Structures are given as structure tokens and as C-alpha cells.
């Protein structure tokens, strides 16, 4: 008990120190609004990618529909804060986004999670496109023009806290009875069932949890950027989240953090290369995959506990 308290305290201190570090850097002017913009993008991508990593890396279900759930969160926030333009309205909208995305994840997940591998990927991609097309044709969502002039309630501190919160939730989920059940489904469905694991239930649990964090990311995206359009949530967005997961290492939350930061910085640096930016990005992507086929970190996780003791039980992950 005492040891657990120590580790949790260390993580808390790390998180708060990180917050003050960024705040100080902003105050002294090292981080300008351009870099702050980059940090927020990285933060939102971390929320998206950890959720997807839970689904792909830990539950072993190849989902390509993450952008659809992000869209639900984003539109929930845009629509709600249009009338309730206050911080309370904003947090309520996050909550509404989570609820709607959970419902959507159940509707999509219950039938499709029976499918395997690439068939599941295509089915979830299709489901996410259906969500996008519906949004594109609704009046309430502004159609193809999307919504703009969304009031800004999500600044970098909000995003920072949300990154910490969603990571705590996902990592604690993974390192618990639930996480073990989910991993057993990934390893061997038949053996898991024979051990009393309801595989449909646990697949859904991971899928729904991943979807709801995606909705949170969507809410932050909408409120920070103040403008959204259906085209932000297409197949390419799902793919770019997938790229972060695979690049960091499928099944490593630490890797997801590293990959989100690496790609975020790379993308920002490439802004200086004009029309060549996407060409260089593509080459970098192929090169990293060829030389690091299991991702930057494989399945390795950073663990404070391991730093302190030789016991290899994994604890929570870097935030």
C-alpha cells in the first residue's frame, strides 16, 4: 500500500511539474503561440492515439474508425456551446459527446466486433464514414461548411489536464483486471472464453472506452481550433491516428506518447519546406517503418516502479 502511494505520488509530481514547466516557458516567451499550437495538437493526438492503442494494441481489434467518434465529440461541443457559451456548457458538451459516442460505439461495435482483422478494419472505416456523411448532410451541423466561430474554452491547460486524465484512465484500465481480460482476448479468444471471459463484452469495453476518449479529443479540437468541418474527420484522419499508434509501437502507451511528439514536431518543422513537406513526411514514414518494424518502442513501457525496484510488474505510464 505504501509503495503504491509512493509511485502515484511520483506520477502526480511529474504531471504537475510538467504543467509548471510549460507555463514557465510560456511566461518567459520560449513557447510562443506557434509552439503552443503544436503542443495542443500533440496533446489531442495523444488522447486519440492512446484510445486507439487500447483498441488495437491491447484488445487486438483492428479499428479504422476513430475519426468518426472524434467527430461526434467535436460536433457535440460545437452545437452545445453555440447556445450555452460558458465553461459549464463546454464541460457539459464534453459529457454529451462522450455519451453519444458511447451509444454510437455500441451500435457499431455489437455487430461488427465479431469480424476479424482486416474485415473489421473495413467495417469500422465504413461506419466512421457513415457518421461523417450523415454530419455532412445535416442542417444542425452546418453541412459541408462545418461550424465556425465556436467559442474557445479549451486552451492548453485544459488539453494538458485532459491528456493526464484520459491517460490515467486508460493506463489504469490496462493494468487492472479489465485490462488483463482485454489482453487475453487479443492473445487467444477461444482460451479466454474457456477461462470464463466474455469476449464480446470485453472487446466492447475497450472499444467503447477508446471511442469515448476520442470524443473528448474531438471536443477539445473543436473548442481550441474554433472551427470544424466534416472533412476533418475522414478516412485520412483515422489513418493518421493509426500511424501514431503503429509508429510508437502497438501495445505501448509510452510509445504512443513518443510517436505523437515525434510526428507533431516533424510536421511542424516540415512546415518550412513548402510543397515538399508531404514528400519528406512520406519518406520519413516509410524509412521508420522499415528500420523499426515494431515501432519506435515496440511494447516497452516506461515504469517508475521498475526504476525503484527490480520487480517487473508494470505500473502507470509516463504522461
Amino acid at each position, binding site marked *: *500500500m505504501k509503495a*503504491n502511494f509512493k509511485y*502515484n505520488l511520483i506520477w502526480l509530481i511529474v504531471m504537475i511539474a510538467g504543467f509548471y514547466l510549460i507555463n514557465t516557458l510560456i511566461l518567459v516567451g520560449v513557447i510562443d503561440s506557434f509552439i503552443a499550437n503544436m503542443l495542443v495538437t500533440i496533446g489531442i493526438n495523444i488522447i486519440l492515439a492512446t484510445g486507439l492503442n487500447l483498441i488495437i494494441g491491447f484488445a487486438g481489434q483492428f479499428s479504422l474508425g476513430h475519426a468518426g467518434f472524434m467527430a461526434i465529440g467535436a460536433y457535440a461541443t460545437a452545437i452545445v456551446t453555440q447556445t450555452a457559451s460558458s465553461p459549464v456548457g463546454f464541460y457539459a458538451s464534453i459529457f454529451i459527446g462522450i455519451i453519444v459516442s458511447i451509444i454510437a460505439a455500441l451500435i457499431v461495435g455489437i455487430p461488427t466486433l465479431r469480424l476479424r482483422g482486416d474485415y473489421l478494419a473495413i467495417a469500422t472505416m465504413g461506419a466512421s464514414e457513415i457518421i461523417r456523411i450523415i454530419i455532412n448532410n445535416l442542417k444542425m451541423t452546418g453541412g459541408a461548411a462545418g461550424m465556425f466561430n465556436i467559442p474557445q474554452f479549451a486552451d492548453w491547460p485544459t488539453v494538458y489536464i485532459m491528456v493526464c486524465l484520459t491517460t*490515467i*484512465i486508460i493506463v*489504469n*484500465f490496462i493494468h*487492472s*483486471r*479489465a485490462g*488483463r*481480460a482485454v*489482453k*487475453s482476448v487479443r*492473445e*487467444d479468444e*477461444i*482460451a*479466454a*472464453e*474457456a*477461462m*470464463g*471471459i*466474455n*469476449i464480446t463484452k470485453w472487446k466492447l469495453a475497450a472499444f467503447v472506452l477508446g471511442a469515448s476518449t476520442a470524443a473528448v479529443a474531438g471536443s477539445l479540437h473543436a473548442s481550441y481550433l474554433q472551427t470544424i468541418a466534416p472533412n476533418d474527420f475522414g478516412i485520412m484522419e483515422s489513418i493518421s491516428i493509426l500511424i501514431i499508434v503503429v509508429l510508437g509501437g502497438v501495445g505501448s502507451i509510452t510509445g504512443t506518447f513518443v510517436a505523437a511528439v515525434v510526428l507533431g514536431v516533424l510536421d511542424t518543422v516540415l512546415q518550412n519546406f513548402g510543397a515538399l513537406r508531404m514528400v519528406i513526411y512520406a519518406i520519413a514514414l516509410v524509412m521508420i517503418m522499415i528500420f523499426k518494424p515494431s515501432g519506435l518502442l515496440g*511494447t516497452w513501457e516506461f515504469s517508475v516502479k521498475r526504476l525503484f525496484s527490480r*520487480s*517487473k*510488474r508494470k505500473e502507470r505510464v509516463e504522461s
Partner: protein
Amino acid sequence: MRTLLKVDNVVKNFSGLTAVSNVSMHLDTNELVALIGPNGAGKTTLFNLLTGVIPVSSGSIVLNSDSGTYPLNGKPAYTIAKMGLSRTFQNIRLFKDLTVMENVLIAMTSKVKEGFIPTIFRFPSYYKTEKQLAEKAKQLLEIFELENDTDVLAKNLPYGTQRKLEIVRALATEPQILFLDEPAAGMNPEETAELTQLIIKVQRKFHITILLIEHDMSLVMNLAQRIYVLDHGSLLAKGTPAEIQSNPAVIKAYLGEEVD
């Protein structure tokens, strides 16, 4: 002694092919029963039917546990597992990329209730249940002398140890009936002898019923109180080891050809 599991006229057809036809059998409490038969006789299929991996085509399977009588046919595998029927697999199916400890803990998943919120926010109750689970798992592993390998990945264990771990994992679900599918496959005579002792020990310690499929006749004859013989999907004979050994039909169909 009472009947724990009653199997009546179970049939399984695979697109026109009858893999198991009209098999009836029963397992009593605290009994150790063997299921033998030549390759392709339908032994593993029968196991799969009993544990719900595949559904029966017709027939009934009924569990008479302390708390009541439950029909098992048509139930999904995880429900049957929760009711107390656990198994090992012929072609070892451990969670290969997880540790020994995790393998055992997973089998205990359905035995604890832990809410989402206490888990996510690490309430003290979470640490308490986790600790209890870990202690229980450790006790089980000790019986099989695996307590020092808790952090080893299952795939890195030697073959014989993997078979042992599968039995530990099955026991962790707290079964009333344990199905062992060729537990001694690929083991040398010493390992087989050791395993025989272990199985006896387990049955005594946990007071459970065991049904095992085995080709190793020395193990079967030493262990089993009763034997069912399966051939071409139907029951050929049943009885005590002595009766089976002297049954002419069995000798003709099976022992005569297969004995080393």
C-alpha cells in the same frame, strides 16, 4: 457420491459428417475418469461440446452442482466456464505474450467484481482485491512449483512447464470439473510420472472431478477410476480399467493396433 454431469445422446454433425453420435455418459463427484480412443475418434470434439466451444447438434448436457441443476447445451463457453467446467487444450493455448502470473490472474477475472470507477481511480479497495488475487494465484503456482517464474512470459517456458501452467490456469477458475486434453503429450516417462502424481494431488486437494483424454496407457491405467472408450464418434465401451483392458471389442478396435 452423486452425478455431477450428465450427458445424454449428444450428437455433433459437421456439414453432413457425424463427428460425435449419441454419446451418453456421466461424471460423479470426486471422480477421475479417462476418455480414450484412437486418433480421430472424436474425443476432442466431445470436449469442445462439453465446454461449449462448439454447440451440440442435439442431445443434452446437464450440470448438477450444489446450488442446483443447470442445462449446459446452448450456453456460451464463458458461461459454462463460470459454472465450473474448466479445461486445458491439446495444442497448448496459453496467453503466450503475457506473464505466468497474468495467465493465472486472467482465469480469476470472473471470480471478482470490481467497479469501473474504483479501478480507474485506484481506490484502496482496488489494491486490496488485486493483492488477494495475487496471493491466491501464487498459492496455486506453488503447488506446481512455478512460483519463481511469475514474471516469465508464457511463451518462454519449457514445453512441459507450459502444460503445467495450463492446468494451473484451469484450476484458477475454481472448477467443479476439470477437463484435461492429453496433458502428457510430448512428455518423457519421468515427466509423465511426475504429472501423474500432480494430477492425483490436485484432485485430492481441490475435491474436483477430472475427465482426461490421454494416449499414454500407463497414465490412464494408473489414474482412472473409470474409462470411456470412443471410436468413430460413438461409445465403444465403458468400465473400470481392468474391464476395459479385457474387453475384446476395445482390444480389437484400439489396443490391438495402438499399443507400443
